[in-house]
């Protein structure tokens, strides 16, 4: 198992350096003069211009610039935001829990309902229910989620008034961030009703963000389950006199999960991309909204290293999924 993990870790290193190269190139590819673009002014005072070039390290040869960039990254220095003068790393840390909470809630929603729908569709193959589940999931897969968010807001918030429209919690509550997860922090706080309020804020964004992963997981679970149910070992399990539930869930689903898990891992990328849209619609104070605002404000250090951080996050999650994959699938684990 350790050699398995070590092998996968080894694969990460070139990918990581590739990503640093990409984010490094990002700023250098801005058409025109970078300082002018960042300051948003046409004619910058030559002295200030030189200073800015110096400060950004743009006046050195490219390889040296890259080396400087890597050295700084190794020291944990991700630069500071041009707008707030805060360190990028610190801003990321304060905002990340919000995105993580949203993403986890969305994954939970997608995972539970996607698996359930997929299994049911597979068991009732060819029935009206199966067609219904597949039709809905293809619709979900085709969903422009920014519009879906607006529709849900229009229906549940504007017409019915059930859920709030934006932010993570109503402004009347003052919650001290302990873990950064609003659902947990509200439990710690003394404030009455804060947990419910936070939950109501979370539901709609989580549904919106979870819609596409839900559709993908349902489709994948169905096809994987159909394949597994044809296997000989399912017949063996039935010949043992096991209950249908045990045959389907213990013997079937366990094996059907293996490809689904890979898809689950791939969905994390989709999820973080979707977070940009979802957070924008629901004014959710997470890293997606942060990045979009930084782009609007030409806050390039935030754009550059925010993207770097998100990319690292995606590789990390895929790495974890790889490991999990090995845990679920003994055949992979024992490969050489």
């Amino acid at each position, binding site marked *: 198992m350790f050699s398995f993990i070590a092998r996968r870790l080894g694969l990460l290193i070139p990918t990581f350096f590739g*990503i640093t190269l990409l984010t490094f190139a990002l700023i250098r590819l801005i058409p025109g003069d970078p300082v002018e673009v960042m300051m948003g002014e046409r004619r910058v005072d030559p002295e200030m211009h030189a200073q800015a070039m110096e400060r950004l390290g743009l006046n050195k040869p490219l390889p040296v610039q890259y080396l400087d960039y890597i050295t700084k990254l190794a020291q944990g220095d991700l630069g500071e935001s041009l707008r707030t003068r805060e360190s990028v790393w610190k801003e990321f840390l304060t905002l990340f829990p919000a995105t993580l909470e949203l993403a986890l809630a969305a994954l939970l929603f997608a995972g539970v309902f996607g698996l359930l729908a997929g299994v049911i569709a597979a068991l009732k193959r060819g029935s009206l229910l199966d067609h219904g589940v597949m039709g809905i999931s293809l619709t979900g897969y085709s969903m*422009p989620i920014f519009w879906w968010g607006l529709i849900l807001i229009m229906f549940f918030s504007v017409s019915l008034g059930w859920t709030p429209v934006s932010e993570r919690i109503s402004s009347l509550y003052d919650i001290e961030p302990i873990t950064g997860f609003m659902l947990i922090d509200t439990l710690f706080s003394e404030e009455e009703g804060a947990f419910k309020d936070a939950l109501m804020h979370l539901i709609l964004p989580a549904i919106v963000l979870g819609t596409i992963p839900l559709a993908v997981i349902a489709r994948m679970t169905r096809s994987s389950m159909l394949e597994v149910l044809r296997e000989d070992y399912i017949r063996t399990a039935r010949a043992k006199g096991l209950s249908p539930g045990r045959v389907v869930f213990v013997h079937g689903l366990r094996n059907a999960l293996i490809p689904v898990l890979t898809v689950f891992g791939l969905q994390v990328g989709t999820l973080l991309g979707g977070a940009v*849209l979802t957070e924008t619609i629901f004014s959710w104070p997470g890293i997606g909204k942060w990045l979009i605002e930084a782009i609007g404000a030409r806050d390039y250090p935030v754009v550059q290293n925010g993207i770097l951080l*998100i990319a690292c996050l995606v590789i990390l999650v*895929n790495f974890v999924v790889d490991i999990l994959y090995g845990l679920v699938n003994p055949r992979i684990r024992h490969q050489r």
Partner: protein
Amino acid sequence: MTDPITKSASAMPPSAVDQSLLYPSPYSEFWQAFARNKGAFAGLLFMCLIVFCALFAPWVAPHTPSEQYRDFLLTPPVWLEGGTWQFILGTDELGRDLLSRLIHGSRLSLLIGLSSVVMSLIPGVLLGLLAGFFPRLLGPSIMRLMDVMLALPSLLLAVAIVAILGPGLINTVIAIAIVSLPSYVRLTRAAVMGELNRDYVTAARLAGASLPRLMFITVLPNCMAPLIVQATLSFSSAILDAAALGFLGLGVQPPTPEWGTMLASARDYIERAWWVVSLPGLTILLSVLAINLMGDGLRDALDPKLKNAA
């Protein structure tokens, strides 16, 4: 030539007719398999409608998309109270006819989808072929590069690219093309690797076929099925991503009637005028759904082996 065959065939009992004689041509076989799939057929019909609208937008649309009827701000659709036949789907906050804007918007969506597919398909297939044919050094380095691109969520990468290049139609196309590049490369490489071990490739090699001939004439045609399906799917995600960029204000800029951009400006009227929010989104959803349905049908018809996969 045909006579003796038909004679001998008719002499046999019906169940014993040589199947190869009745076998339909690849195209009609494909079409039969595709048309049997009701969803795919419906998707095709809807796409034909969209393409028609896009091609003949100036004649189909009842109004000019940018003309502002100041007396008709936020007019509801015709079936609601206050609606008029003049504006069938109502008007937006500036009094522009929604239907006309949607019809003209289809031009942009199709244009973006089509050009980004072409712009990523061609280099993607080339890179994939190279990666498949040179598995020692070039292949792995290409694949590593693609891994890097895949590590970034596609929408985020597109956002980053537009953030650098600046918003606009052409940059949207470029961003989307770059984002969908890795899947073509991976798919082509996987297909090429599978084909390279086949005997027909060895035979062509021994016959002295040059490398380009091997690549494009011998191997590539046998890798087309998954590529066609992928092209369809990335066409639909291109439409989605373009609309998302428009919605974030990074895509096609107003007043151009792009579906996503229309949604962005409609957000503020969510409480007063549901139609300016619902209809553009519904159009996006239906178009993307139609293309995905076609993609499913294509996959089933082109590659029966994949029928139950994904």
